[in-house]
């Protein structure tokens, strides 16, 4: 994986020292909160309901085992013994104090980590496919390109005060596992006519109160031109994007207002000026970064026999294997998803003890590497098939082997009103109750792929618009009210879910979701996914089941 060079190391250490001085000036009263707030946000430090929260960057979700152990130490020493993995493949510590933050940044810098640009109106952590580099269906490993974007966007002076935050995702396979359609910029890798690396560029996707799917702005962008083209898009956004209204300042609003063709014209005109500038990526530089993502040495002669035999002998192992393993490009290996969604648990939370234990397992089974997924799970990407059974038993003893990837209990939930200053309703308790109830139904009926995402406010941190079943928590007349959307997807068949009808109270929402699923089971074709049934029959049967047929005339 990528190793910091002298420049990277200097940058993160200087940044920690700089923030130490800023905190001291804030506490002494030299800086007001208005002056200090943009500085702390640039270092990932939010004030939430009960405490400060520090969001630590995990570039494209990639961690070494020693970095995971450092996160565990931080969780124990400065927090309450746990951390929370997020949909941006980052980690948040919910209970840190202002006074300790500079020390935490020092500890992070010591393991080549930081919290730079995890908040604020700048370019955020570039996310990617959690199976990057190992996926059997991959065109090319997107991580070197994500790293190139990281280096270009870190402390980019021109883009430090954008109209609004800016999120880029990059996917290296035909199957989209990075939700590129709902990003400010989505990059989808492909090969050009001569086998060269390129990207299809999408722009103007996003969620929040105005959900939109990204539109194609360029069918083929040569890899060498990646940074100049990104810079052209950002420059047009920086100049033309609205700054008068927080809710209309994302690039999706600009693209929608201008129309994609006019927006493209502006970008191409800008690009013509800078295409042949120093931003052009030389083959040698691309090769230098690529070399840092060399795959570990695999054993070419792994015997898959024991894996097959154990699946036959042990039903629980077979079930986990079917749900949580992903095909690997190296024969005899698998990418393993470590579920952070125990039935009835808090999505994405992990104790320091489990972080340490998983770091040990990463060393033993997966070349010391861990990935964070945008679904709030973890991945061990390089596991020999003949060792899967031993790994599964170890994960199971840590309660990290719930066999539920992309299933109904693999719920994405934001922190919601239990922690977040922006939230209008709680997310976590709803996720916990749903998980406990739906686990039973899944056990009986094998629901297959069915995603449920729960956001505690319209900012949509849990991406509820692109879940098969989305839940949005609002405050209505002083009480929590949960609005349900059906039919969203963030995959290759991306779509925005549609609201089914009036919202449900906190004591009604679990039963409402159960009604939707029971209704589906009655009309499901054999083996059909919920999303496919819904696309086949439409919303009416579900609306009738929830509100009665009389509601059709309302």
């Amino acid at each position, binding site marked *: 994986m990528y190793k910091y060079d002298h420049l990277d190391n200097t940058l993160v250490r200087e940044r920690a020292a700089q923030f130490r001085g800023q905190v001291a000036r*804030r*506490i*002494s*009263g030299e800086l*007001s*909160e208005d002056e200090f707030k943009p500085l702390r946000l640039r270092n990932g430090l939010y*004030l*939430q*309901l*009960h*405490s*400060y929260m520090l969001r630590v960057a995990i570039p494209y979700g990639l961690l070494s085992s020693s970095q995971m152990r450092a996160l565990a130490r931080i969780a124990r020493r400065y927090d*309450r*013994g*746990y951390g929370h993995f997020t949909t941006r493949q980052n980690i948040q510590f*919910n209970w840190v*104090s*202002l*006074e300790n933050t500079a020390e935490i940044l020092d500890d992070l810098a010591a393991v080549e980590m930081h919290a730079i640009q995890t908040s604020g109106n700048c370019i955020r952590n570039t996310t990617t496919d959690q199976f990057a580099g190992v996926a059997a269906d991959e065109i090319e490993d997107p991580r070197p390109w994500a790293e190139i974007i990281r280096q270009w966007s870190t402390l980019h002076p021109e883009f430090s005060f954008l109209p609004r935050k800016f999120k880029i995702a990059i996917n290296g396979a035909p199957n989209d596992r990075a939700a590129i359609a709902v990003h400010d910029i989505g990059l989808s890798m492909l090969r050009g006519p001569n086998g060269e690396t390129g990207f299809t560029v999408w722009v103007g996707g996003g969620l929040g109160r105005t959900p939109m799917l990204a539109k194609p702005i360029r069918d083929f962008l040569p890899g060498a031109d990646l940074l100049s083209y990104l810079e052209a898009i950002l420059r047009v956004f920086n100049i033309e994007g609205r700054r008068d209204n927080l809710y209309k300042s994302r690039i999706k609003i600009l693209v929608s207002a201008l129309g994609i063709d006019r927006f493209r014209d502006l970008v191409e005109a800008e690009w013509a000026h800078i295409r042949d500038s120093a931003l052009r990526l030389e083959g040698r530089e691309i090769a230098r970064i690529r070399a840092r993502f060399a795959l570990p040495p695999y054993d070419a002669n792994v015997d898959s026999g024991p894996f097959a035999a154990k699946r036959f002998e042990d039903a629980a192992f077979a079930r986990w294997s079917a749900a949580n393993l992903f095909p690997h490009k190296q024969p005899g290996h698998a990418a393993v998803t470590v579920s952070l969604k125990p039935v009835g648990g*808090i999505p994405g*939370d*992990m*104790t320091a003890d489990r972080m340490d234990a998983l770091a040990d397992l990463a060393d033993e089974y997966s070349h010391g590497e861990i990935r964070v997924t945008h679904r709030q799970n973890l991945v061990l990407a390089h596991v020999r098939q003949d060792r899967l059974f031993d790994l599964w038993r170890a994960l199971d003893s840590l309660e990290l082997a719930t066999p539920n990837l992309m299933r109904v209990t693999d719920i994405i939930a934001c922190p919601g*009103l*239990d*922690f977040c200053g922006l*939230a209008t*309703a*709680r997310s*976590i*308790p709803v996720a*916990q109750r749903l998980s406990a109830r739906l686990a039973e139904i899944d056990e009986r009926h094998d629901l297959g792929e069915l995603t449920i995402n729960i956001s505690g406010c319209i900012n949509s941190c849990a991406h509820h618009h692109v879940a098969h079943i989305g839940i949005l928590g609002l*405050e209505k007349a*002083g*009480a*929590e009210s949960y609005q349900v959307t059906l039919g969203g997807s963030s995959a290759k068949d991306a779509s925005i879910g549609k609201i089914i009808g009036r919202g449900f109270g906190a004591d009604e929402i679990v039963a409402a979701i159960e009604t939707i699923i029971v209704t589906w089971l009655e009309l499901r074709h054999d083996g059909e996914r919920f999303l496919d049934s819904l696309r086949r029959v439409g919303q009416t049967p579900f609306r009738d089941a929830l509100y009665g047929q009389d509601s059709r005339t309302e």
Partner: protein
Amino acid sequence: MARMVITANRLRDGAVVWRSAAGNWSPNITTAAIHATGEQLTAGLAAALADEKSGRVIGVHEVEIETRGGQILPTRLRERVRADGPTVSFA
């Protein structure tokens, strides 16, 4: 006027605090001064904002409450969660 208490977060650690009649900031809502008139609230907020300016606390705001059995209960869920902590046990 609905009865109000005044709250903020402590600057150094972000902890939720409530302002007492004596002008202290405590993590315990039971110590909060209850303001029953507009004049009381205005005076309380002025003093609280002075504490914000001096850097003791941030995010000063008033919270509507009711009292039940001698307990102070914020009427909005958001403020009840601030007063009592998360409604879930974590990790």
